């Protein structure tokens, strides 16, 4: 009798304590910091219910681009991998997908066609008020960093960068931009 009552309390207690967590989650995910998921990851919901938080992708990344969330992005994101391109961007080696046991990061062959067809971490956007090339000081560093040069990122007059739809969001341009704060940023595609 007593134990049964206690079990009841335990269940109710767990549920009650998790409710605020879930709502806090929703709140955080609306604002939140700007981050990328590793290349090829599906939209956020699907990624979160596929990923088992094993850390293998981080251990495979030769560029140490992958970091792991604590509580700052909500409980659902705890221990999931993410990339902050300004700190360390993805070199599109596709090793993370190769080790991911669940397919939360799918296996993608390391060819330009496959990468362009299947990777969509986000898309670069140039802030013309910050970009040196748009201020008349020929720069073009981001263009030289882009692995999809002339496909994803072209330069026009005075090395002014222009991003195209083919951009996969690897973040190497943002990482390399010599302006502070960076004049080119990746707008993440999470859904």
């Amino acid at each position, binding site marked *: 009798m007593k*134990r049964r009552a206690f*079990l009841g309390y*335990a*269940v109710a207690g*767990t549920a009650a304590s*998790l409710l605020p967590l*879930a709502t806090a*989650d929703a709140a955080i995910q609306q604002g939140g910091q700007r981050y990328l998921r590793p290349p090829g990851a599906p939209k956020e*919901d*699907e990624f*979160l*219910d*596929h*990923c*088992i*938080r*094993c*850390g*293998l992708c*981080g*251990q*495979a*990344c*030769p*560029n*140490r681009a992958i*970091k*792991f969330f*604590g*509580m700052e992005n909500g*409980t*659902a*994101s*705890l*221990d*999931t991998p993410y990339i902050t391109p300004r700190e360390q961007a993805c070199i599109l080696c596709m*090793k993370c997908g*190769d*080790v991911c*046991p*669940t*397919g939360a990061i799918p296996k993608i062959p390391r060819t330009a066609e496959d990468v362009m067809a299947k990777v969509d971490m986000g898309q670069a956007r140039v802030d013309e008020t910050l970009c040196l090339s748009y201020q008349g000081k020929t720069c073009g560093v981001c263009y030289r960093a882009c692995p999809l040069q002339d496909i994803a990122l072209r330069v026009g007059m005075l090395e002014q960068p222009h991003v195209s739809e083919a951009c996969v969001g690897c973040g190497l341009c943002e990482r390399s931009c010599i302006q502070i704060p960076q004049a080119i940023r990746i707008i993440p595609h999470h859904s």
Partner: protein
Amino acid sequence: MSSPDSKPFFLWRHLNKLRWLSLSIVFLMLILIPFLHLYQTYIAAHAYDLLYPSEKVIYDSMETLTAPFISDPENDLDLLKGTTWSGRLFGLDLSDPLALAGQIAASGKLLWPFVLTALIPIGLTLLLGRFFCGWICPASFLYELNTTLGAWLRNIGLHTGQRRMSRKFKYLVLFVGLLLSPLLGSVAVAAIYPPAIVGREIYYAIALGGFGVGAVFFAATLLFDLLVARRGFCRYLCPGGALYSLLGKFRLLRIQRVVEDCNDCAKCNAVCEFGLDPLRDGFGMECNNCTACIAVCPTDALVFKVTPKDQPDRGPGHLGRQYRRAHNENAEDEHEP
């Protein structure tokens, strides 16, 4: 001490040492693998001269360690990755059955390549029961050391927790954890499962510059074990332990008591980390075949048997006082008329 002749296989009592070796190796691997990862990233960066002195130490030592076995560390070392939660052991992908259960609960989908990685652990658990807990679990390694610490604290007169609770709690934790996964849209059990946490946190600490949230949770479980219930998390709360106990209910390899050789000393019950009752044949689904009880039994009355079910309680050991007294009384009864 009794003489070693007429005993079962004499090496059985040394299995517990082998088990400690196994636990230690797993734990050391979890420390080594992040360092190997760092080594790989240094190679990938092609900038040995730019490394800090401490990073050079990592580079050099890992190079020395692996050079005899591999030719291309940048790729060859990809065959050794991960943790006990999910990992790649010399090219073989293995995952914890709880990771699979949690992932299925969260997404409602069977991802076949992932399912395959859990088959070997599931098969072994069906045969050997909760052996992961005793032989592999990196959290178990720390929890058993924690138990030893508790014994020392008691020796100097401090109180440690010796509370007993319902073992059924952990099934509730497993159930609630799996039930919450689809609601939260994430693999919830990953956050409260000690071996997953330990593997992950060691990696965070070595390769990512510091412990994460899980370390706090794990420290809390250590305190719980010390202050509330000896080995309490594994006995009463661990969702993984619950899953393996269920899978291992009809395990084939079991430790059983030979009642004829037992002298009722109860050393087995005292040493059992899982609070079981080998003294009265109370092994059940939660025995993890750790062999600690075999190692302490002075008369070698605990042996391995291949059987899908425990024998029923066979009463007092025949070498014990209780049995002998009853037996002698019976003998006297028979003589009286």
